[in-house]
């Protein structure tokens, strides 16, 4: 087999954004040494919350579990990124700057915990065992959604293809590019492990066309490995081709049905970073305690990729790299990144990129004018929304119209915003619309449930209604947590909450059960 096959896209959505990823092979990633104090956030993603398993003052080892997924959320196990002492646990959000977190004092020794051992001969182990192990390693989707990988790898019947997403299409973000160039074999072995768990027929590693060096190194590693199930393909450099559903559309030529899951097409999608993390945990015994982070922006001289321990405050990165005049920090890329409130904010499992800016915008939107109905926003939308009509519908209080026009389908990609000549902050407005709609749904659902519960009261045993209340609480939490998330992710989560299999329940339950893993 010669070079990777180029998949031609049949879609016309998206933007051609200069990514500048092609020119040179990347130098090796910089290790950022662990700071004296680390802040491990308990809530790293909108849908996930973890509960502390340690006490203040307790000594912990590197790689030791310090928090477990909270019930009925999509949190993950969190591990101590360093060895040291738990100095405080913040359990409430008392201000917007201090978040729920475990604060660790680093003893500088990096003494590794006993649990951190590689699994020998993983392919001889049962898929369930590996899946359970992946959950214990705190592995989550590193593309940004942080959905627990083990839950996503729950083999539904009919999964044919494992899609490994290396399409890093958002400007500035370069960490997957680094992984693909520096550690292609990690990505491959993680892919093989996930194939084993899923029992899928094939794995497709998709890489953006202009990530030429990543393509070369990945293809070479794949040729060397010579696993007939795995192939590398390249996709056009269009933003946001790396969105899960967008990539599936490009690769398979069909869209995930509305309200459905990728699994409906026989596809499971995982990020390359996730694959590498699976490999590091299973084959090298290191749980997810560090990640590749792109550090760039006009306040730093070098744009480089760094290996950073989870929980490292941004300030520590700034001082290590000697960045000057940082007055604005964006976590994520230039299209979807969020602005940090403070440099004390730590790196989480989701932090793929840190843009250190000296305050000047990249290219600010013009002063806002009314929509001139130019329609430029329509063809670029990857979710098939007419943003102009959606915006118009938001001028009334009737959210049903906004919902019919796709408010919940918006993936916050920012394409419409980017092209809008009137400088309207469409994306931010659509996020608010989503929130309003979810809140209304929640209210309606609550009313319906309480009515139902009242009517059925006599027939119900106490445990049953407790159970139901738990489900409702979980859904409430999911709604609240996820109102800013995309419809797709929400659907995923709600579906899984509603149809939680015994297996999932075990994952979500207390860590005590993990010792009895089905080996």
């Amino acid at each position, binding site marked *: 087999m010669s070079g990777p096959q180029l998949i031609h896209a049949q879609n016309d959505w998206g933007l051609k954004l200069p990514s500048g990823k092609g020119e040179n092979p990347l130098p090796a990633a910089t290790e950022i040494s662990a700071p004296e104090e680390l802040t491990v956030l308990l809530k790293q993603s909108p849908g996930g919350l973890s509960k502390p398993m340690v006490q203040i003052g307790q000594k912990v080892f590197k790689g030791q579990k310090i928090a477990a997924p909270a019930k009925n959320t999509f949190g993950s196990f969190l591990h101590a990124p360093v060895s040291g002492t738990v100095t405080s646990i913040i359990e409430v959000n008392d201000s917007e700057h201090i978040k729920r977190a475990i604060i660790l004092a680093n003893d500088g020794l990096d003494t590794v915990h006993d649990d951190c051992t590689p699994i020998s001969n993983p392919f001889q182990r049962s898929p369930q065992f590996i899946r359970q192990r992946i959950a214990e390693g705190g592995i989550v989707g590193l593309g940004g959604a942080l959905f627990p990988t083990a839950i996503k790898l729950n083999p539904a019947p009919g999964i044919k293809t494992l899609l490994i997403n290396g399409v890093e299409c958002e400007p500035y973000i370069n960490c997957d590019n680094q992984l693909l160039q520096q550690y292609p074999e990690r990505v491959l072995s993680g892919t093989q492990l996930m194939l084993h768990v899923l029992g899928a027929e094939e794995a497709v590693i998709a890489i953006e066309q202009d990530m030429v060096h990543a393509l070369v190194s990945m293809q070479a590693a794949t040729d060397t490995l010579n696993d007939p199930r795995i192939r590398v393909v390249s996709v056009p450099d269009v933003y946001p081709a790396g969105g899960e559903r967008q990539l599936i559309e490009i690769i398979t030529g069909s869209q995930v049905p509305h309200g459905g899951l990728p699994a409906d097409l026989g596809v499971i999608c995982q990020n390359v970073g996730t694959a590498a993390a699976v490999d590091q945990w299973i084959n090298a015994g290191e749980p997810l305690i560090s990640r590749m982070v792109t550090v760039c922006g006009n306040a730093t001289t070098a744009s480089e990729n760094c290996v950073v321990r989870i929980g490292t405050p941004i300030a520590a990165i700034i001082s290590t790299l000697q960045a000057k005049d940082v007055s604005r920090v964006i976590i994520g890329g230039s299209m979807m990144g969020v602005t940090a409130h403070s440099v004390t904010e730590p790196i989480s499992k989701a932090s793929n990129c840190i843009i250190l800016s000296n305050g000047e915008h990249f290219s600010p939107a013009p002063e806002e004018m009314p*929509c001139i109905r130019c*329609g430029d926003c329509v063809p670029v939308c990857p979710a098939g929304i007419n943003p102009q009509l959606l915006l118009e519908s938001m001028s009334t209080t009737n959210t049903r119209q906004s919902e019919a026009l796709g408010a919940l389908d918006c993936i916050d990609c920012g394409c419409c915003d980017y092209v809008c000549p009137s400088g309207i902050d469409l994306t931010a407005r659509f996020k608010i619309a989503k929130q309003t709609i979810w809140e209304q749904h929640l209210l309606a659902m609550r009313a319906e449930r309480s009515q139902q519960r009242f009517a059925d009261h006599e027939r119900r045993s106490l445990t049953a209604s407790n159970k139901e209340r738990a489900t409702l609480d979980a859904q409430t939490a999911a709604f609240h947590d996820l109102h800013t998330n995309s419809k797709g992710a929400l659907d995923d989560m709600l579906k899984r909450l509603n149809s939680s299999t015994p297996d999932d329940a075990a994952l979500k339950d207390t860590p005590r059960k993990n010792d009895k893993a089905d080996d």
Partner: protein
Amino acid sequence: MSLLSNSRAPHQHSQRNVAQMMRDVLLATFPVSTILCWTYGWGVLLNILFAASCCWLLEAAALKIRGRRLQPWLTDGSAPLTGVLLALALPPLTPWWLIAIASLFAIVFAKHLYGGLGYNLFNPAMAGYAVLLISFPAYMAWWPELSARSNINDTLHYFLYGTAAADALSGATPLDAIQTGLKQMQTLPELLANGTLETAGNAQWVWINLAAIAGGLFLLMRRTITWQIPAGVILGLALSASIAWIGDAAVNPSPWLQLVSGGTMIGVFFIATDPVSSASSPQGKLIYGAGIGALTYVIRTWGAYPDGFAFAVLLMNLAVPLIDRYTRPKLYGQVQ
């Protein structure tokens, strides 16, 4: 270290803006204005300058009355553009008060009464022009003879007083000539052969239309307009014309004649493409354009006015909400 946190995603923008789009369109009208001036004389320039200033002043007045800030509205270029487009539709000799009335309707009634830029239902320039067509049909039908173009004095005189100097001759546009000729039971080949169309400036109008196309191509290249509306209008008009022309070439002008006579191409590229009053989705734009083309043909053929472009645009403006509704793109996943 305190951080600026007032930035929302996306942090990057294409750098296009409304004022720049309007400037592009203004710039793109340059070739066609030049050729029109060349053909019909100083009156065209006078109209353009007067209408643009009128609209701009009225915009300022309307903003003041509505208690709005003058910025950025006064520099967004939309008001002068309305004036220029209006002027391009007018006969080369138009008394100033008619231009003032049309500007008033365009800016105050069609635009600001609906809420200003972005909210107007109708194309402001065409709304203003339609008022003149209905209220002052004689003035609107009066086109000077081609040879009268160089006389500045006469032009100014007419502009100020609305009466022609004794020796000024009345001409006609090719579309007028065709309508009148057909009414007098002449056939098109006859009109061509006896030079009626030639006198009406058929050849010059081809050039005017070509100049408009040049401006339109510039706008397409700059992505200030998209191809769907112009393509729709051209297809709509050419198809309707072809059907009739194939049926009876003696009384039905050829599609080519339809496309290059009158200011058809000015309409195609500058009038129909007004973003605010047209459909927003790509398919919607195509339908909107085709509607304008077909209606233009209908009005030219059976209507009381030789050129129906303005009315076709206004009628299709009314259909825009409906078109938008039925051309909504399919949401992701709803395609199957």
